[in-house]
C-alpha cells in the first residue's frame, strides 16, 4: 500500500489536499482536506444585512457574483421581500453569463490539459485536423488555415522554451490517449475559448456595472436605472450589445464546447467507468420568473441513489423540504460544536479546533454537509440529472445531443447512465452550459418585453422590523448548490453561515464516517504512475474544485503566505 499526497490540487484559488492509498494500481481509500480556515461568517456578525453581499463576494475571486446573489436572496427571504421583475431578469442575465463564463473557462483552461497533450499537437497534420473538425461541427473557425496558424503559434511558443500556461501538464503520460490531430483541434479551441469567454464577462460587466466585483446589487432588487433615452444607464444600445454577445456565446457553446466534450468523452470512454462516487444528487431551482420566487425557469430538487424516477422537486425560496434538510457535521473537521451532533446552518457555529491531519480523526477545514442525513453530490451533473428528471425539455434535448455524438464517435450506444462518472461530469457541465446560453436569450427577451410594457421598476426598499428574522438564500451556482443562511436581530446580523458547493463535494467524512463525494469518487480509480497521479487530478478536476470559498484564510500552521509545491 502506497500513500500519495497531492497538495494543492486546485489550478485555481484555494488549497485542497488529497491523500490516496494505492494498491495494485488502484485507489483503495481517499481523503479530501481543505487546508485553509474560512471565517467570513465571523466578519459578518453585527453588520448591516444590506452590506453583507459586498463582503461575501470577496470570499472568492472566481465566484464573486454567486456569493453576492445568495446573500441578497438570504436577506430578502428573511424579510419576505419581493424583488421587481426587471431586477430578477437583470440578476438572471448576470447569473447565466457568469455561469457560461465559468463553465467555458473550467473546461478549456482549467481541466482540458488533464486530457489534451498540447505538445503532441505539434505532430498533427493540420489538413486532417480540419477535416475531422468539419465532420463534427459547422463552427466557422475549424478550417485548415486556422489549424495551421494555431500550430505555428504553438511551435513558436514552445520552441521559445516558454511552456508558460502549459507548464503543469503531464506531457507524454501513458494515460494521454488523444491523437495529435484531436490534440491540435483542442488547442485551437483552447485559444478560441480565451477569446469567447471575454464576451460572457462583458455581459456581467455591463449589467453589473463592473467586474470582477459587481456593483449593481441591492437587497430588494438592483441599482440599474432603466431608461431608453439616456447614455448613463441601461439603454437600448447596451441591451443590443448584450444580445450580440449572447448570440456569439450560443454559437461557440453549441458548436464547439458541447462537441469537444463529446469527442473527449468518446476517446476516453474508459472514464465513464471511473469517478462515480456519491449518487445522491442535490440541486436547487433557479432563474426566478416572478417577484416572490415561486416560479423558476430551471427546476431543481433531489435524486437519491442515482434513480431519476425518484426525483423530488424543490419548489421555491420558501420551500421547507429544502430548508429543513440541511445539516453540517464537524466530526472530521477542525471545528468544535458545543454539542457533538450535526447542526442546522441557522444554529451553525464557527469555532476552530486545529489538530493536524488525522486520517481517522479530524483532517479538514471543511465541514461535512448532509441532506436529510445523506451525503450528496452537487454541481452541473446533479443539476442536469434533476432537470432531466423534472422533464425540462432543453436539458433533455442537449443531453440527448451530447450522448448521441459520443455514441456515434465511440461506435457504441452510450446512455444517460454514463453520466455518473468522471467524464460524465464534464459532459453534464457542457449540457448545462448549452441550456444556459438559450436561457440567456430568453431572459434578455423577457427583460426587453417587460421594459417595453413601461415597467422600469428595479428596487423595493427593505424595511427591518424589530426582533429576529431568519432567511436562506439559495443559488444554483456553476459548482452547484450555494446557500447563505442569515439570522437578523433588530436590523443587524446575528448569525451567518455559507454552505458552499465545494463544501458539499470536497467535504471530509460525516457523522456516520461516510466519505464525501470527492473521496468516494476516487475509489478504484486507476493510477498508472504513483509519481504522476494524473488520474486523481482528472477525477477531482471534473468537479471543478474551487475551495477558496469553502475555506479561506491564511494557513494556520505558519500563519503566513502559504508556500506550495506545484503538482
Amino acid at each position, binding site marked *: 500500500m502506497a500513500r500519495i499526497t497531492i497538495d494543492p490540487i486546485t489550478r485555481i*484559488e484555494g488549497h485542497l489536499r488529497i491523500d490516496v492509498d494505492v494498491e495494485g494500481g488502484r485507489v483503495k481509500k481517499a481523503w479530501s482536506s481543505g487546508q485553509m480556515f474560512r471565517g467570513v461568517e465571523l466578519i459578518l456578525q453585527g453588520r448591516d444585512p444590506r452590506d453583507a453581499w459586498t*463582503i461575501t463576494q*470577496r470570499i472568492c475571486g*472566481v465566484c464573486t457574483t454567486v456569493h453576492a446573489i445568495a446573500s441578497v436572496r438570504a436577506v430578502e427571504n428573511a424579510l419576505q421581500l419581493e424583488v421587481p421583475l426587471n431586477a430578477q431578469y437583470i440578476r438572471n442575465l448576470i447569473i447565466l453569463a457568469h455561469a457560461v463564463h465559468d463553465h467555458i473557462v473550467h473546461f478549456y483552461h482549467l481541466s482540458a490539459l488533464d486530457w489534451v497533450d498540447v505538445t503532441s499537437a505539434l505532430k498533427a497534420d493540420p489538413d486532417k485536423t480540419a477535416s475531422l473538425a468539419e465532420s463534427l461541427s459547422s463552427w466557422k473557425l475549424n478550417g485548415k488555415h486556422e489549424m495551421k496558424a494555431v500550430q505555428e503559434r504553438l511551435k513558436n511558443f514552445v520552441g521559445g522554451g516558454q511552456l508558460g500556461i502549459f507548464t503543469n501538464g503531464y506531457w507524454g503520460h501513458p494515460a494521454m490517449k488523444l491523437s495529435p490531430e484531436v490534440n491540435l483541434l483542442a488547442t485551437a479551441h483552447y485559444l478560441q475559448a480565451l477569446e469567447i469567454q471575454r464576451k460572457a464577462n462583458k455581459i456581467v460587466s455591463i449589467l453589473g456595472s463592473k467586474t470582477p466585483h459587481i456593483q449593481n446589487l441591492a437587497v430588494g432588487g438592483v441599482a440599474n436605472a432603466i431608461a431608453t433615452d439616456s447614455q448613463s444607464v441601461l439603454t437600448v444600445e447596451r441591451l443590443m450589445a448584450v444580445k450580440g454577445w449572447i448570440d456569439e456565446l450560443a454559437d461557440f457553446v453549441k458548436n464547439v464546447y458541447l462537441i469537444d466534450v463529446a469527442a473527449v468523452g468518446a476517446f476516453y470512454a474508459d472514464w465513464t467507468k471511473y469517478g462515480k462516487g456519491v449518487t445522491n444528487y442535490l440541486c436547487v431551482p433557479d432563474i426566478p420568473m416572478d417577484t416572490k420566487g415561486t416560479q423558476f425557469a430551471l427546476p431543481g430538487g433531489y435524486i437519491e441513489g442515482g434513480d431519476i424516477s425518484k426525483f423530488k422537486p424543490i419548489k421555491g425560496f420558501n420551500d421547507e423540504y429544502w430548508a429543513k434538510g440541511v445539516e453540517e457535521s464537524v466530526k472530521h473537521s477542525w471545528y468544535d460544536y458545543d454539542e457533538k451532533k450535526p447542526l442546522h446552518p441557522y444554529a451553525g457555529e464557527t469555532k476552530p479546533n486545529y489538530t493536524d491531519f488525522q486520517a481517522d480523526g479530524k483532517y479538514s477545514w471543511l465541514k461535512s454537509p448532509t441532506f436529510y442525513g445523506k451525503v450528496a453530490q452537487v454541481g452541473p451533473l446533479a443539476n442536469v440529472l434533476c432537470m432531466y428528471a423534472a422533464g425540462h425539455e432543453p436539458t433533455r434535448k442537449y443531453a440527448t445531443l451530447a450522448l448521441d455524438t459520443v455514441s456515434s464517435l465511440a461506435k457504441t450506444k452510450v446512455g444517460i447512465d454514463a453520466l455518473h462518472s468522471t467524464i460524465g461530469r464534464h459532459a453534464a457541465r457542457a449540457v448545462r452550459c448549452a441550456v444556459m446560453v438559450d436561457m440567456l436569450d430568453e431572459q434578455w427577451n423577457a427583460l426587453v418585453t417587460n421594459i417595453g410594457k413601461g415597467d422600469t421598476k428595479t428596487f423595493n426598499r427593505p424595511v427591518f422590523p424589530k426582533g429576529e428574522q431568519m432567511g436562506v438564500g439559495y443559488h444554483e451556482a456553476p459548482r452547484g448548490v450555494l446557500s447563505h443562511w442569515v439570522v437578523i436581530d433588530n436590523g443587524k446580523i446575528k448569525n451567518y453561515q455559507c454552505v458552499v458547493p465545494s463544501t458539499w463535494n470536497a467535504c471530509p467524512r460525516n457523522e456516520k464516517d461516510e466519505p464525501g463525494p470527492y473521496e468516494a469518487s476516487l475509489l478504484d480509480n486507476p493510477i498508472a504512475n504513483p509519481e504522476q497521479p494524473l488520474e486523481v487530478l482528472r477525477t477531482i478536476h471534473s468537479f471543478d474544485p474551487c475551495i*477558496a470559498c469553502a475555506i479561506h484564510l491564511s494557513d494556520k500552521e505558519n500563519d503566513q503566505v502559504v508556500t*506550495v509545491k506545484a503538482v
Partner: protein
Amino acid sequence: MKTVVLGIGNLIMQDEGVGVRVIEALERDHPMPAGVTLIDGGTSAMEMLDELSDLDHLIVVDAINAGKPPGTLVRIEGEEVPSFFRTRLSPHQIGLPDVLASLEFLGAQPKKMVILGVQPQTMELGMELTPLVAAQVPVLVDQVLAEI
C-alpha cells in the same frame, strides 16, 4: 498609451487586501488621465483577461511576501517579473500568473510591467489593514501616480 493600475488582494484577510485599498484611495482622491484604468481585481483571474489585453503598461499593486520586516516596500520590474511569479512571492499564486501566461500565448501581453508591493504583517481574518501597512498606502498611491 493604454495603462492599467491593478490592485489585487483579499479584503477579508487584512493586509492581504492592501492592493485593493490603494485602488480605492486612487479612485477617491485622484482623477485618472485618459488612457489609465483603475481595476480592483480582488482575487479574480480570467475575468480580467479582456481588460488586461494589449496594454502599454501594467502596474500591479499587491501584498508581497519578500521575507522583509512588515511594511517594507517592494518594487519588482523588468526581468524580475517572471521569476517573481515563478517563486510565487505573491499570495495570488495562481490567478494573475495564469492570466499573464494566457496573454502571452495570445500575443497580447503588456509591453511594460511593474509590481509595487508591501510586506504584509498579518493575513488573519479581518477587514482592516494593520497600522504599519496602512501607513504605506499613501506612499504606494504616490508611487503609482509617479508611474503613470
